[in-house]
C-alpha cells in the first residue's frame, strides 16, 4: 500500500458556508437561473448579503440535464427581446465571468418538413429580422451544404423542405456555466448553501419574512424562487398557485465520435434535436412525456421515437450506440412562455415556467429576475412575462410559433 498522501485539493471555486440566521435576500434553487440571479443581484444591485439555497448539489437538476442549445429565434416580440438579450449576454459572459465555458456559436438550424412548416418558418425569419435577431431561410441545397450529413433526399417520410438558420446560436458547457456563475457569486460574498432543502416559509400576514429549511430557519426580507420543476411545490408551501405542469423531459448522448456534425439541427415536426458535444458525443433531445411527473425519468418509447427521427435524418447515426439517457423535470406553462415577476405573496418573487428551454435564457432570467427582486418591479424585458397574464389574457403563445422543441 502506498504511504504517499494524496496531493492537496486544488482551490475550490466556492466556499460551502453554514447558513447565517438572516440575509437580505434568499434565492431558492442553485441551478443556472438561481446562480445567475444571485450574480446579477450582487453585481448590478450591490446585494451581496444573500444566499442561494440548493436542496441537492449545485446545478445538479435541469442545469446538468439540458441539451445546452442557445438561440433567440422566437416569433413574438416579447420572447425575441428577452432571448436575444440573453444571447447578447452569452456573447460577453465568458470574459465577464473570466471562465471559458466553451460557448460555441456554430449556428442552429430549424428544419421544415411540411408546407405549413415552410410558411411558419419564413414568417418567423421575417419576424426575427424585424427584431434584430439574425435569421436566414435556407433552401434544401443550402441545408445540405451547411450540414452534409443530413439526409435531404426526397425519399424519406418527411423530406427536408428547407430550414431557418440562426448563425449566432450554438451550444455551451452547461456545468461550466454554473461553476462560472458560482465562483463569481462566491467572490462577491454570496453564500451558496448546498443540501439545504426548503420545507416552508415564514410569513407575517401576506408578507414572507423567512425560509424554513432542513438546516434551520433563515430570516430574510426577500425570497426569489428559481426551482423549475418544483416551483409548484414551493408555491403551495407559500400559499399561492402557479399555472405550471411538471413533466419529465428526456435526453441522451451517444458514445464518442469524431467530429461529423458542424451545427445544431432541430426538427419540430419529426421531433428531435441534435448537436455534437466538444468531446464528440452526439447530444439529442426530444419532447416531454405526456404525463405529469416529478420522477426525473420518462418512458422509453419517447427515446425510441426520437431515435427513429434521428436515424432517418442522419443515416450515419444508424450504427451509433446510446451511451446513456436521463430525464429532468420541466415546468411547462400553457403558452410555453416563462413566468418572471411578482407573486401574491409580498416580497416573494418567482422565476419559473421556462419549460423545455430554460438553459438558453439563463443570463436574461438572472438579469431581469435580479432587477425584479432588488427593485420590487419588473425589468422591461420580463414585464410581459408576469403571472397576471393568465388573467388578463395577454398570453405570449410560443407553442408552435417558436417551436415545441427547444
Amino acid at each position, binding site marked *: 500500500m502506498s504511504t504517499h498522501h494524496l496531493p492537496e485539493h486544488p482551490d475550490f471555486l466556492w466556499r460551502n458556508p453554514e447558513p447565517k440566521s438572516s440575509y437580505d435576500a434568499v434565492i431558492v434553487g442553485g441551478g443556472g437561473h438561481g446562480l445567475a440571479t444571485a450574480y446579477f443581484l450582487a453585481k448590478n444591485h450591490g446585494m451581496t448579503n444573500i444566499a442561494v439555497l440548493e436542496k441537492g448539489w449545485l446545478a445538479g437538476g435541469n442545469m446538468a440535464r439540458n441539451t445546452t442549445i442557445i438561440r433567440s429565434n422566437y416569433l413574438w416580440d416579447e420572447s425575441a427581446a428577452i432571448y436575444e438579450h440573453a444571447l447578447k449576454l452569452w456573447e460577453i459572459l465568458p470574459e465577464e465571468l473570466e471562465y471559458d465555458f466553451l460557448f460555441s456559436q456554430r449556428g442552429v438550424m430549424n428544419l421544415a418538413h411540411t408546407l405549413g412548416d415552410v410558411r411558419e418558418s419564413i414568417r418567423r425569419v421575417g419576424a426575427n429580422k424585424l427584431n434584430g435577431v439574425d435569421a436566414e431561410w435556407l433552401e434544401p441545397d443550402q441545408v445540405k451544404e451547411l450540414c452534409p450529413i443530413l439526409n435531404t433526399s426526397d425519399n424519406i417520410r418527411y423530406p427536408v423542405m428547407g430550414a431557418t438558420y440562426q448563425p449566432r446560436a450554438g451550444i455551451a458547457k452547461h456545468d461550466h456555466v454554473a461553476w462560472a456563475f458560482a465562483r463569481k457569486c462566491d467572490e462577491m460574498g454570496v453564500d451558496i448553501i448546498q443540501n439545504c432543502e426548503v420545507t416552508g416559509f415564514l410569513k407575517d400576514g401576506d408578507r414572507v419574512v423567512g425560509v424554513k429549511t432542513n438546516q434551520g430557519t433563515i430570516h430574510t426580507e426577500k425570497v426569489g424562487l428559481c426551482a423549475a420543476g418544483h416551483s409548484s411545490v414551493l408555491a403551495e408551501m407559500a400559499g399561492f*398557485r402557479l*399555472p405550471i405542469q*411538471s413533466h419529465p423531459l428526456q435526453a441522451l448522448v451517444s458514445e464518442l465520435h469524431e467530429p461529423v456534425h458542424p451545427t445544431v439541427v432541430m426538427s419540430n415536426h419529426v421531433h428531435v434535436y441534435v448537436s455534437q458535444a466538444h468531446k464528440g458525443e452526439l447530444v439529442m433531445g426530444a419532447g416531454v412525456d*405526456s*404525463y*405529469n*411527473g416529478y*420522477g426525473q425519468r420518462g418512458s422509453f*418509447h419517447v427515446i425510441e421515437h426520437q431515435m427513429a427521427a434521428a436515424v432517418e435524418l442522419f443515416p450515419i447515426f444508424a450504427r451509433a450506440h446510446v451511451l446513456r439517457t436521463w430525464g429532468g423535470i420541466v415546468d411547462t406553462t400553457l403558452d410555453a412562455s416563462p413566468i418572471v415577476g411578482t407573486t401574491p405573496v409580498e416580497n416573494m418573487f418567482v422565476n419559473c415556467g421556462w419549460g423545455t428551454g430554460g438553459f438558453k435564457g439563463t443570463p436574461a432570467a438572472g438579469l431581469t429576475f435580479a432587477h425584479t427582486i432588488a427593485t420590487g418591479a419588473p425589468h422591461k424585458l420580463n414585464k410581459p412575462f408576469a403571472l397576471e397574464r*393568465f388573467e388578463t389574457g395577454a398570453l405570449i403563445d410560443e407553442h408552435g410559433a417558436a417551436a415545441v422543441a427547444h
Partner: protein
Amino acid sequence: MLLISCPNCGPRDETEFHYGGQAHVPYPENPNDLNDREWAEYLFYRENTKGTFAERWVHSTGCRQWFNMLRDTVTYDIQAIYPMGAPRPDAAGKVTAETGTASTAADSTTTGTAAPSIAATSTATSTSATSTTAPEGATK
C-alpha cells in the same frame, strides 16, 4: 413505459393511450358569472401534485373510452383506475391496491353503476400478468 389497465380492454402499453391531465375539473356551472380570475383558474390553473394525482386518460387506439386514474407522480405507480364521473377513491384505495384484495366502493357515482376499481401497479419493467382485467361496472 407505463402498463395501464384499461377498464374495458385490460393491461395495454402506454403508447395506446393519450393523457388528459387533471381529473375532476368540471366546466363552470354558471360561466357568465365568472370573473377573469375565475376564468384563469378554470382555463390555466391545474393541480401539479407531487405524489398521488387524479388524472384522465383515454384508450385512443383501443376502446376509445375515457377513464380516471390515481397515479403517483414521483414513482409513477398506478394506484387506482376508476370510471369518469365517479368520485376519487380515498386513501384506502392505495392500501387496497397494495394488498390487492378488494376494490373500494364509492358512496355514489354519477354513472350509477360504476364503483372505483383498483388496478395492479405496473411499470415498464413489470412483465407479470397480475393486472386486473376489466372491472365490473366499468363504463362501456
